[in-house]
């Protein structure tokens, strides 16, 4: 359905869509951010991992990392304080709209390769923290390669249709009756650390099957890799428990003594190993008991 809609939009409706408003107003954010908390959240959320071209030896957060999709390669943006090619001339409200809504300062939609869907519930304080941390990044005056997808996907306005069909709210709201740790784990797993971005199957239009495919694994990740199912039942049957899972998020060591590979090696190397012990334990606690539905 999504592809059909997108194609229709591509064939005729794009001009109309350009005027179709999707942005929610962003109230002014005047809170003072905490750099340390922002860096921690940036690490947990993968901002640093995706926006640093480690492979190409690129400077931190200068973007340029390419993500293969069936429709072409999408390049991560330069997030340094450079005013020309980075986000140095942005206001915090622009940043908030990009991170929580996936929209540019001009309200043009970003491709969902950018995992903004998982950041929709970030609070104003969390946005202020991230913003403060990003202000400490040295400017890099270099553009990233231009993302050039096949038509109709080249038309970003077509993404408005995609958004209407596939932009789901993250399941981060606390569940009463569960422990603080479980709820913290839920917030991290379903939100910031975006485990479902890889571990949930996508439909033909790249939308996550949040009803039928939740954490059921994905055999066709960008670049041809596969992520196994990580529902509680699947984890139990592959020999995981809370302890081994939180240890794996710290070290990459699995219960059989193997070491994570694929995208998962990077998730640990560039993300979860920097979290606190409590946060990793919280994530494992939630993952082994995703019992609310």
């Amino acid at each position: 359905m999504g592809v059909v809609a997108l194609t229709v939009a591509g064939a005729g409706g794009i001009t109309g869509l350009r005027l179709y408003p999707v942005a929610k107003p962003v109230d002014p954010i005047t809170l003072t951010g905490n750099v340390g908390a922002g860096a921690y959240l940036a690490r947990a959320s993968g901002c640093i991992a995706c926006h640093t071209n480690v492979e190409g030896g690129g400077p931190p957060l200068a973007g340029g990392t390419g993500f293969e999709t069936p429709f072409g390669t999408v390049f991560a943006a330069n997030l340094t304080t450079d005013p020309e090619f980075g986000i140095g001339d942005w206001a915090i409200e622009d940043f908030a709209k990009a991170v929580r809504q996936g929209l540019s300062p001009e309200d043009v939609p970003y491709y969902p390769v950018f995992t903004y869907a998982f950041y929709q519930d970030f609070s104003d304080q969390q946005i202020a923290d991230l913003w403060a941390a990003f202000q400490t990044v040295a400017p890099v005056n270099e553009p990233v390669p231009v993302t050039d997808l096949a038509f109709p996907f080249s038309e970003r306005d077509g993404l408005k249709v995609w958004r209407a069909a596939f932009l789901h709210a993250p399941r981060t709201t606390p569940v009463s009756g569960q422990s603080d740790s479980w709820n913290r784990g839920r917030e991290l797993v379903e939100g910031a650390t975006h485990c479902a971005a890889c571990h949930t199957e996508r439909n033909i239009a790249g939308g996550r099957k949040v009803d039928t495919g939740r954490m059921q694994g994905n055999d066709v990740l960008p670049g041809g890799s596969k992520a196994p199912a990580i529902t509680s039942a699947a984890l139990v049957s592959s020999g995981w428990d809370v302890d081994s899972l939180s240890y794996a998020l710290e070290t990459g060591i699995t219960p059989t003594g193997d070491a994570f590979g694929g995208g998962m090696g990077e998730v640990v190397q560039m993300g979860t190993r920097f979290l606190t012990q409590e946060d990793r334990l919280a994530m494992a606690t939630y993952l082994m008991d995703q019992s609310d539905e």
Partner: protein
Amino acid sequence: MKFKTLTFAATIAVLATTAVAHKGAKGMLLERMNGMLAMGKATKAIAPMMRGLEDYDADRTSDYAAILQTHSGDPMLALFPDGMNAAPSVAKDAIWTNWKEFSALAVQLETYATALDLAAQNGLGNAAPANSSMMGGDMTGMMGADMIGMMGGTGVDEKTLETLAGLSVNTLFVQSVQVCSACHTKFRAEE
């Protein structure tokens, strides 16, 4: 104590050789897989001690280091002849198109194993996670010095054996496994 250690090593050896016909692999591929499996089994067995859940025993650390040494560096590389990745192998083609990096990781693991052996007597060290420093309270900005180190992958390339051998055993253990993971991330496909 020595007896226990020998039993440990012997168990590992048995475990490794009983993995015959693993996934239907034969010959050199089977040997390659068994080498990896031996390191996996040894890592699983030693992890509780490295986490401080079992009493520290320097001999066990040395035995573990010996197993890694046996299966890393040149011995490991010898089992990856050009293009040998037909099923059931999950080795990626990138190994041979990027042999320089692949072989550097194999050698790096050997260096870590040697350092682990040298450091065995240093003791376990602080049980806190080896990598939490970057998020320590002294971090002044997103681009703290530790972070730059992180950006260079595992950040171990330039460290000499002497520097490494001065580290605590649990730090070295975690960093060794990061080498396994870094290699699996780039050069091993999922099943």
